[in-house]
């Protein structure tokens, strides 16, 4: 049986099931609460699965396996960074966020500050983080489907755009949650199965897997040593900061904590996400190492120069065909595309809610918009987001997806995270401090990315970068914190003084966590 037909069959089945769930979700009632936060009725376990489905993208499954295949042990810096990022979200963010907001990231940040400026700032923060990430996903999906199914890139982007619009317009957060849960189950199941097949090829002898990986790799015994991917400590620390703190700055991930009924459920969902993330990173590492010797010397998967056909990102796909045959290859291909749809659905809701709730209902209509009116604006925002996503997918065809993802992660860590953390824990934060901190973080991130190696050298063709690292977090994060704290302490406006004084005398309330 042709693997393309299998992949198409599984993908069509996935689409039909998820569309059925979407229609079912729409019949459960169309309220604002349901659209933004699934009515707050998602269980802790379900939300944990959905968080994993929202977070673990194709970049993780395909990209990190490829990174292990090429650079070996350095991949662990990525895997540990995101897992620790989720742990920090659990310890510091999840509970207060759940208590402070109902639907959006902006509500949590503006809890005790002036709603107008903070809503505008937070909405801009959501858009500047989510749009580059959305472009990265849609460009990746087009390229992936073009390679796997043999259909045109533009058609693939249109299919993804139409599906994401249907899912979110009809089913809102309920549908997105179900899609993310199903996708997480499929991804984890297929990852465990492929890891089992890989270990089975070495008779479940990890020592043999390691020895044969070293023997089959150009790096030899340096494969398991650090420093193959990162040559500069500053670059490694900058990436580590972005990975571990950027998660808390992604609005589409943090919004998931509004979908559960209590802080207990929020904690449980974060713990489940941590467990899934950690296990998945180990699976990816084993698959990447095993693929080195299993794919070495194969005429089917390597070109005449000995390079992997389709690049290192295709390691998982090639290995699934090698070990599992056409059916498993088709299954993995369909799962990879489903993965992108699930992430994109979450991002679309984050963008739509920032536009309809923060900008329209809270800022333009100053809280006077009816639920029907706000819901209509939300759905219109989803349609516009879908159309813009498809157009951006066309425009950015062939662009480096990693650069776009780096932009999003760095901006999330430097713009949203400092403001969110200070809004929760620092009573002297003022409205202007929050706005200036986020603004400085954004300006520093964009400047460092433009002056860095990815844009300044590889895109604009200059000889050497002005800012040495691809990830600007090492510069932008301290700058954002310094600006937020400095402006808050020096804010001379009457509102600033009132916010400082009012908060200074506050009774410090615990988030309910143990002492």
């Amino acid at each position, binding site marked *: 049986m042709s693997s393309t037909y299998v992949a198409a069959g599984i993908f069509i089945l996935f689409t039909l099931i998820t569309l059925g769930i979407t229609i079912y979700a729409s019949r459960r009632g169309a309220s604002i609460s349901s659209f933004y936060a699934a009515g707050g009725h998602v269980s802790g376990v379900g939300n944990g699965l959905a968080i994993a489905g929202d977070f673990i993208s194709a970049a993780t499954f395909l990209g990190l396996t490829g990174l292990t295949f090429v650079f070996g042990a350095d991949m662990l810096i990525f895997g540990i960074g995101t897992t620790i990022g989720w742990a920090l979200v659990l310890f510091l963010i999840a509970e207060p966020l759940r208590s402070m907001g109902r639907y959006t990231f902006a509500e949590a940040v503006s809890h005790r500050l002036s709603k107008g400026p903070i809503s505008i700032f937070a909405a801009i923060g959501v858009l500047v983080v989510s749009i580059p990430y959305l472009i990265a996903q849609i460009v990746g999906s087009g390229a992936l489907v073009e390679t796997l199914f043999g259909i045109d890139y533009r058609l693939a982007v249109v299919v993804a755009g139409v599906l994401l619009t249907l899912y979110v317009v009809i089913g809102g957060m309920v549908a997105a949650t179900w899609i993310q849960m199903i996708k997480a189950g499929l991804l984890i199941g297929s990852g465990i199965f492929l890891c089992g097949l890989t270990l089975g090829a070495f008779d479940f002898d990890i020592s043999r897997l390691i020895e044969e990986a070293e023997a089959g790799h150009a790096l030899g015994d340096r494969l398991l040593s650090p420093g193959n991917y*990162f040559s500069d400590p500053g670059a490694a620390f900058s990436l580590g900061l972005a990975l571990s703190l950027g998660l808390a700055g992604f609005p589409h991930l943090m919004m998931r904590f509004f979908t559960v009924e209590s802080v207990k459920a929020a904690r449980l969902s974060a713990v489940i996400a941590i467990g899934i993330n950690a296990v998945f990173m180990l699976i990816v590492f084993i698959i990447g190492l095993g693929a080195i010797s299993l794919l070495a010397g194969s005429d089917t998967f390597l070109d005449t120069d000995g390079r992997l056909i389709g690049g290192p990102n295709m390691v998982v796909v090639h290995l699934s065909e090698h070990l599992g045959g056409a059916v498993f290859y088709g299954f993995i291909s369909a799962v990879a595309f489903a993965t992108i749809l699930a992430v994109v659905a979450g991002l679309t809701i984050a963008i739509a809610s920032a536009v309809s709730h923060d900008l329209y209902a809270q800022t333009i209509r100053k809280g006077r918009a009816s639920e029907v009116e706000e819901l209509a604006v939300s759905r219109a925002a989803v349609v516009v987001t879908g159309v813009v996503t498809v157009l951006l997918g066309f425009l950015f065809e062939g662009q480096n997806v990693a650069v776009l993802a780096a932009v999003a992660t760095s901006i999330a860590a430097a713009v949203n995270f400092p403001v969110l953390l200070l809004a929760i824990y620092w009573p002297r934060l003022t409205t202007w401090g929050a706005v200036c901190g986020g603004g400085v973080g954004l300006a520093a991130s964009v400047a460092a990315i433009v002056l860095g190696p990815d844009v300044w050298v590889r895109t604009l063709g200059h000889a050497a970068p002005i800012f040495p690292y691809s990830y600007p977090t090492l510069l932008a994060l301290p700058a954002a914190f310094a600006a937020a704290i400095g402006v808050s302490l020096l804010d001379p406006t009457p509102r600033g003084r*009132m916010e400082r004084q009012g908060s200074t005398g506050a009774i410090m309330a615990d988030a309910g966590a143990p002492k």
Partner: protein
Amino acid sequence: MISDHAITRPSRLSAALSILLAGAYAVYIALCMFSPHIMSARNEAVFGASTAIIAGVALLTICIIASVLYLVLSRRNDDQGARR
């Protein structure tokens, strides 16, 4: 506009676990970058893996243990609060 009760502070447990994990990650990166000879050393007793891999897997495991510990202790604290 200002709701004082919105301001929270991290509990000792969450602050300690955050510092522990973030610190361990920073030390891991520092060792990988500044002491590659230590992190490249092979450990035949653990499948012949390098220290970088063993320490990385250990950190992932510690992350899971710390989060489960936090969950259990938080739940106990919730129950005690409810009884009071």
